[in-house]
């Protein structure tokens, strides 16, 4: 088969830069020249365009579908429905198998896929969609998450009963100590639906293969998990599905679930032609799951000096119609429901429910974001009630290495939270408001104020995130490393299935190979399924897991190389292209020893095993690693108009080991920005199960005018279990920036503010 145009190819990562250096991205030059091959850039000779008919209704029965008028439309090559799904009719993330590939007789959320069209032009395909005639029986959507959780008479959304998961956590005896608390504070909190809003829309190309199989070029986070769903639905064995990762324009959890993969493959297999699918932004809002909205009730009892005695917590997460990642999101919300605080008596009940609201699943922070907004709001509320400042109340209750989480799990690695809080507090404050330049003010160039009504506030947030998959999951990673002499220079080829989604994993892979093999030339093979699973590019886990597997494969290659050395040594190492004996100095160059031989090794890396959560008490060693970020936010609020300008965000984060400072800072900045979005602007607005703002005109993400300067303090207290001592870093700042900003707005306004995003009307009343 000939490769399609703009298919991914090897990326050379020549030059210097091992672990710890700010090596530049190997794909950076391609990206700035516009030559990097994203999934939406794919093109093949004779390719057709696929399009998807989606439900306008959140809940309805399909009485009949007539596809004949669409099929008769000139230029249309195929119109497919659920009857054309060759294999299993349902798929689902984490093999939950509850989501129809194409709707069967009914739809359970707005935007659910119903039918597919392939045509010779994207506009032809879109017009043909309009010709598919559907007779509907429209039903009242089930949109009340609390009733879904607690009212047994509430109708079922799908075959599976509500709640999808209820996870309790029980420590001590809350009822026994409740009466003894000197101070009791309560809060009810809400988090709206946030969208990942990655900029590269869902896209890909399916090319029929001569053996009856399919070649898929897609943008995803975990090819091997896709494959486990795609294979059965297409009725094809996995070896006849060849997947190659195309350029991914951001992910943030939104590409964990399948989007167009099975659809494009069905159209390609049906027509015998390559089929490209590319969502536009409107369709993208319906083409992936979002962050679960949450309704949370918290009660803390404490002594007058601020020491928390008990926490009584209820968290309801609305997963929409299908399971997706809801089960694990509930696990995170439950296990991290009170965050990094020592609390002797805990009662948490976390629920995930099915409704006809938009489907929700993975997004950066994954269940921990929602709880963090609530528990950090509670810390401020408790501090206020006790007359204790926000930093001190947190330090009074802070966990540290050796503390138990609410699950009973002992924190095995350093967690210097008290020091980090003090560090955040003691950072220099930004300059006072300079209202001589109107662009510095809330509302900016809109000239809504000249400084009158503007109040400054400062707030803190602390977030604790689990790194890698939890609850007993063995999310191993595989790496293949090949060492050979190319053009007289020892060169390593690193091949994994790990998804580079923008986070810089390809940079880290090359750095690790350089450090472990003592060479300069590294080439990154395109990620595909011709090598074992690398697990998902999520849960801040790829530096840890694929970093670990690349390191392990390099060690295996190195050990074989050493067997080629003449003489007996037990003190060899590799550096500067040489094989070096600690006692006898340089032995030989790698090239001389290797000659024309090729050494190739494949290794899996598994993290420390975890356990599930006890179904009654929630107890267990459920997390691989936890990571902490502390934010201090400074805001100016126009209290008359309710406009907020975030003046500065300062973060203190412990990453264990800095592999690449430039790249790491970018992760902390970006995570912080998404937390700012949730704090003050981002929400998918839903009424009666329908999305009211599926566009970048109406769903606002932070622009460069919304983002303040960000000050970072990065600590390196190693985790002895992790490769190089590192901690996953991408998610923690997304947790902590949201509550810090809201706390700062409360400080400026004196308002209680129980919901994010905070809107102007919440401030003006």
């Amino acid at each position: 088969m000939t490769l399609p145009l703009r298919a991914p190819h090897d990326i050379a990562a020549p030059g210097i830069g091992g672990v710890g250096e700010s090596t530049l991205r190997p794909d950076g030059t391609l990206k700035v020249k516009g030559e990097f091959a994203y999934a939406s850039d794919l093109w093949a000779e004779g390719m057709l365009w696929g399009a998807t008919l989606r439900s306008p209704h959140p809940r309805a029965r399909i009485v009949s579908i007539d596809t004949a008028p669409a099929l008769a439309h000139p230029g249309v090559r195929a119109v497919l429905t659920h009857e054309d799904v060759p294999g299993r009719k349902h798929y689902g993330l984490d093999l939950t198998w509850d989501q129809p590939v194409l709707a069967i007789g009914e739809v359970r959320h707005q935007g659910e896929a119903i039918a597919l069209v392939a045509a010779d032009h994207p506009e032809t395909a879109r017009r043909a969609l309009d010709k598919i005639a559907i007779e509907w029986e429209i039903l009242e959507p089930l949109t009340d998450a609390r009733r879904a959780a607690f009212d047994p008479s509430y109708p079922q959304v799908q075959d599976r009963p509500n709640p999808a998961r209820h996870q309790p956590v029980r420590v001590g005896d809350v009822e026994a100590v409740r009466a003894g608390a000197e101070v009791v504070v309560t809060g009810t909190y809400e988090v709206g639906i946030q969208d990942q809003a990655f900029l590269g829309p869902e896209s890909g190309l399916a090319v029929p293969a001569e053996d009856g199989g399919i070649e898929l070029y897609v943008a995803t986070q975990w090819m091997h998990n896709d494959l486990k769903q795609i294979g059965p639905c297409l009725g094809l064995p996995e070896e006849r599905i060849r997947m190659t990762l195309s350029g991914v324009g951001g992910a943030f959890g939104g590409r964990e679930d399948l989007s167009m993969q099975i659809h494009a493959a069905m159209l390609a297999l049906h027509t015998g032609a390559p089929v490209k699918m590319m969502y536009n932004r409107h369709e993208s809002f319906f083409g992936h799951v979002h962050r679960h909205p949450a309704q949370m009730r918290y009660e803390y009892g404490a002594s007058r000096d601020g020491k928390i005695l008990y926490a009584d917590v209820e968290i309801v997460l609305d997963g929409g119609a299908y399971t997706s990642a809801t089960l694990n999101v509930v696990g995170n919300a439950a296990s991290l429901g009170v965050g990094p605080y020592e609390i002797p008596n805990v009662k948490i009940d976390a629920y995930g429910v099915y409704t006809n609201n938009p489907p929700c699943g993975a997004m950066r922070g994954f269940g921990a974001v929602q709880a963090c907004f609530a528990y950090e709001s509670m810390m401020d509320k408790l501090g206020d009630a006790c007359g204790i400042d926000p930093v001190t109340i947190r330090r009074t209750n802070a966990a540290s290495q050796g503390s138990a989480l609410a699950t009973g799990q002992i924190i095995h690695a350093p967690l210097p939270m008290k020091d980090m809080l003090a560090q955040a507090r003691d950072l220099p404050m930004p300059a006072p408001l300079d209202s001589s330049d109107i662009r510095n003010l809330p509302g900016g160039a809109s000239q809504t104020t000249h400084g009158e009504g503007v109040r400054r506030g400062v707030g803190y947030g602390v977030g604790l995130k689990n790194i890698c998959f939890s609850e007993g999951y063995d999310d191993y990673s595989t790496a293949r490393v090949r060492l050979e002499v190319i053009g007289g220079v020892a060169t390593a080829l690193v091949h994994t299935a790990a998804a580079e989604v923008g986070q810089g994993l390809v940079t880290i892979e090359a750095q690790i190979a350089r450090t472990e093999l003592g060479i300069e030339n590294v080439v990154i093979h395109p990620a595909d399924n011709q090598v074992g699973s690398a697990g998902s590019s999520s849960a801040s886990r790829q530096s840890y897991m694929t970093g670990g597997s690349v390191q392990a494969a390099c060690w295996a290659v190195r050990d074989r190389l050493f067997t080629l050395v003449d003489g007996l040594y037990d003190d060899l190492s590799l550096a500067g292209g040489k094989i070096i004996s600690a006692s006898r100095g340089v032995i030989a160059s790698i090239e001389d020893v290797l000659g024309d031989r090729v050494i190739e090794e494949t290794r899996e890396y598994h993290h420390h095993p975890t356990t599930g959560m006890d179904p009654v008490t929630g107890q267990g060693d459920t997390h691989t690693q936890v990571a902490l970020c502390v934010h201090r936010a400074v805001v100016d609020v126009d209290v008359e108009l309710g406009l907020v300008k975030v003046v500065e965000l300062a973060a203190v984060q412990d990453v264990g080991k800095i592999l690449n400072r430039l790249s790491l800072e970018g992760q902390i900045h970006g995570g912080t920005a998404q937390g700012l979005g949730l704090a003050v602007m981002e929400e998918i607005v839903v009424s009666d199960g329908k999305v009211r703002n599926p566009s970048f005109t109406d769903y606002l993400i932070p622009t460069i005018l919304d983002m303040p300067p960000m000050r970072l303090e990065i600590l390196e207290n190693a985790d002895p279990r992790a490769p190089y001592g590192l901690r996953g870093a991408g998610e923690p700042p997304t947790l902590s920036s949201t509550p810090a900003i809201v706390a700062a707005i409360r400080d400026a306004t004196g308002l209680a503010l129980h919901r994010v995003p905070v809107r102007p009307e919440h401030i003006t009343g």
Partner: protein
Amino acid sequence: MRVSFTVNGRDESVDDVWAGESLLYVLRERVGLPGSKNACEQGECGSCTVYLDGTPVCSCLVAAGQAEGRQVRTVEGLADGDRLDPVQEAFVECGAVQCGFCTPGLIVQAHDLIERVPDPSDAEIREALAGNLCRCTGYEKILDAVRLAASRKAVTP
């Protein structure tokens, strides 16, 4: 219809263009220049920014027919062979590129800013790039890159 225009100094003539196609679609799907990106296709994100007769525009909002007889310069036309434009070079060096989907539009917009304002203040950079969405970086390193590119252009005119 047929549309003829100059792109990156090369004359292009494209046949069978449907009247509803945007300049972005023609560049990406008919001329083989997919560098300009399709993040929103409604003029909100700036990822499709190109020069049209020297002025940055969202190419998704320009009907293909409007480009007839005009000069288009895309992100693919900024480098001089293997020698990157200082803006491109600075984006790589400063870590301003993550997923990179917003990058082509930001580079064209920043390139235009530095042509117009050789030594922009932070406020001027923010104002000039306010129409370009980035979801990965939080913009901090993009500011670094524009500052660096401006300083380099100032010493090598």
